[in-house]
């Protein structure tokens, strides 16, 4: 079966090549991926089965149409026959498709039931939260979480004129912080959202579940082999829906354990960061990194997209005015425009850094250095 399908696909590809042709084309994938998990393999087999059923029925029906078109044409002297119903045929072509469908539904239902069986025996649980336009991965039993944004290497070349600039960087399919999973272990995902509906999808795992505000959806996977797997947000979630990729890195059990302890250490340092006094330079350096999460609306140079309702921060009233109003805007969000979300979920030090950055970058030069303690005070 698989062979026949690939011959068919190669033929279509050859025909397609007559229209456009670049060196990339040879690499273009045309069929669903079989993926890397037992479930994704089953899904691929179901897909191939139903596709072949369609191809065979199609060949039969279209074959009949083409025969009529060539043999029963008036120009060849065909005289119309007189029949216009036939009980036997009509019963047959109702019952046979019905039986084929039942044959299809049984394996489909089996796979579905396996996929939807809750993963109560999972060894790792990760809460995935969709944000406009990034993901948060919370390793619930390890006590750390982090955001995963579109990689800067991609964001920087979205508007590049030369396509060469987009090569070799997994354009739009790379992130700053990858989700990391242990190979061969059952992992449970809990999906939810902080704003609009997103959908977390990795084709190679055949996992796609919507992340919906107010809901917690569940999915699970077991990835046997280490590797890097890529996907994208699948549900329209606003302006940057096309720019919130998903990258999962599967590591061996030992490497995973090492990664976890490193992350825990970093979380501890960050927590310590909330209690110390930072120099302005430290704040600016960290702030520039955090600001990546604001740049999709306010732009990297602080100029915003005023036409779309995203204000400039460069010289803006709040970013150059009293610190209290600035803190309030970023921690609690805008009172009038939900697009400016409440960023209070960030750590005190991240908030202090990004606010300091906004007050001194883009020529704002207020000279202020906002400390984590100021943020803590403003939260009350």
């Amino acid at each position, binding site marked *: 079966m698989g062979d026949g399908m690939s011959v068919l696909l190669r033929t279509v590809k050859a025909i*397609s090549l007559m*229209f*456009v*042709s*670049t060196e*990339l084309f040879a690499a*273009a994938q*045309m069929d669903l*991926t079989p993926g890397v998990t037992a479930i994704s393999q*089953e*899904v691929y087999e179901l*897909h191939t089965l139903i*596709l072949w059923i*369609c191809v065979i029925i199609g060949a039969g029906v279209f074959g*009949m*149409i083409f025969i*009529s*078109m060539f043999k*029963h*044409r*008036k120009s060849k002297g065909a005289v*119309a026959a007189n*029949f*216009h*119903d*036939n009980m036997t*045929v*009509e019963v047959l*072509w*109702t019952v046979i*498709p019905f039986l084929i*469908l039942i044959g299809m539904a049984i394996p*489909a239902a089996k*796979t*579905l039931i396996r996929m939807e069986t809750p993963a109560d025996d999972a060894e790792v649980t990760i809460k995935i939260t969709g944000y406009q336009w990034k993901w948060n991965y919370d390793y619930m039993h390890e006590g750390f979480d982090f955001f995963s944004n579109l990689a800067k290497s991609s964001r920087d070349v*979205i*508007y590049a004129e030369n396509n060469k600039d*987009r*090569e070799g960087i*997994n*354009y739009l399919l790379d992130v700053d912080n990858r989700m990391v999973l242990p190979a061969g272990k059952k992992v449970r995902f809990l999906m939810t959202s902080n704003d*609009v509906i997103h959908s977390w999808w990795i084709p190679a795992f055949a*996992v796609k*579940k*919507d992340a919906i505000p*107010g*809901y917690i*959806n569940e999915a699970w996977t077991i990835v046997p082999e280490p590797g890097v797997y890529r*996907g*994208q*947000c*699948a*549900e*329209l979630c*606003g*302006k940057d*829906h*096309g720019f919130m990729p998903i990258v999962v890195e599967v590591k061996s059990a030992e490497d995973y354990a090492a990664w976890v302890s490193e992350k825990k250490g970093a979380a501890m340092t960050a927590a310590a960061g909330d209690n110390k006094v930072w120099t302005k330079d430290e704040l600016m350096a960290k702030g520039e990194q955090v600001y990546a999460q604001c740049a999709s609306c306010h732009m990297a140079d602080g100029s915003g997209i005023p036409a*779309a*309702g995203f204000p400039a921060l460069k010289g803006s009233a709040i970013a150059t005015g009293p610190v209290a109003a600035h803190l309030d805007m970023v921690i609690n969000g805008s009172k009038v425009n939900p697009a400016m979300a409440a960023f209070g979920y960030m750590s005190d030090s991240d908030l202090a850094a990004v606010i300091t950055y906004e007050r001194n970058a883009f020529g704002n030069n207020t000279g202020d250095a906002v400390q984590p303690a100021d943020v803590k005070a403003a939260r009350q």
Partner: protein
Amino acid sequence: MSEDHHDHKPTGIGRWLFSTNHKDIGTMYLWFSFLMLFIGGGMAMIIRAELYQPGMQLIEPDFFNQMTTLHGLIMVFGVIMPAFVGFANWLVPMMIGAPDMALPRMNNMSFWILPFAFGTLISTLFMEGSAPNFGWTFYAPLSTTYGPASTDYFIFGVHLMGISSIMGSINVIVTILNMRAPGMTLMKMPIFVWTWLITAFLLIAVMPVLAGVVTMMLTDRNFGTSFFEASGGGDPVMFQHVFWFFGHPEVYIMILPSFGIISQIIPTFSRKKLFGYSSMVYATSSIAILSFIVWAHHMYTVGMPLAGELFFMLATMLIAVPTGVKVFNWTATMWRGSLTFETPMMFAIAFIILFTIGGFSGLMMSITPVDFQYHDTYFIVAHFHYVLVTGALFAIFAGAYYWLPKWTGNMYDETLGKIHFWISLVSVNVLFFPMHFLGLAGMPRRIPDYALQFTDFNQMASIGAFVFGGIQLLFLYIVIKCIRGGEKATDRVWEGAEGLEFEQLPSPAPFHSFTEAPEVK
């Protein structure tokens, strides 16, 4: 039948503004739909131009979202639906032997609401902030809490469209049930009339649901309710259930009249009676009934309980049975016929094959575990463009070529018709077929920019789109040319044509169809 004693047409602009004549109103519907086809199509060209290569070149992501949203809304509500109402207006009275529609003033109103509805919708493009940018499915909370200010105008426009559709369908139902010529029993009605009768019931059933969902949006946005707002105790998934309870029957609203048109055309050019008339009627009715219990197959990934997913999978698969019956019936009608290939027949045959391809991808998507992979990708985009463009739109083309001679009294230019057909056929497949591959390879829908491996098929699709879009100007030319003159059509128009409009009315059909009821054997 004498031709002129009842033909006192009003003249000037008043003829159109105050028209109560089913033919004039039908004409206005068809022209309106044609105009919207070019507006919605223009938006599609913008989308395909931006997607011609990776990176953002021509427009901004937010404007891209506005284009996909308005393109979808305009094509669904402004092109396909009004075109079918136009056909219904022109044809239902002629086909059942009635002088006009039953409720002519309401008919006038239901048409004249449309320019206001779409004027409102399109005006949002010029409003501050942004036009609706949340997709034609306008899922909450993207369209409620996060929707631009213009969303309220969109809601108003949708209400107007709904009122227009409901009035239109009441008119169709009343006309068909009360104004048939003596002897025209229900089971003698042309299939086109049958499909429209069923469509009209679907419309009456679901348009109020659409009105309900946008009203809930309106109060969520402006009056502090929380129907769809999780933080207020509401439920964003309920939005999708209500929307698709409207939306799935809506899909059949856009395809049943095409089945009707194709079922008229295939017998004519096969010179053979439609195979399985009564099974066609039953199949159409079962499709309509099933359409109410399959809605959640549009939302398999929202996290429904397993039982729900299984139920919707099985119910959806079931629809393949009556749909298959229709395709088999058309095939059997052509079998051992005496076929000729005028333009309407070419479009009708292309319809059968390409619509069936769209049906196949639909069947594939009904399988829940596999749909987790297809959902929200270009595979879906390919699927619904096969059923709506090479399906519904091709049926509209076929119907237009088929009845234009009856409507205008002139034959259209057959050579140009063939050119229109062949270029459309090739380009539409270059446009939509590669989208299957893009979807399977993992390209999500509604993204303004894509990873490099999707480049080639996107380029192909864009080239197909420009050709397909451009060639529709030829269709416009063909229609105008046919209206203005040409070889005179005979009363029967086509050798194999049957039905009251061909057998008992001259070409062009008189302003008032049947002042005296014709005899139906």
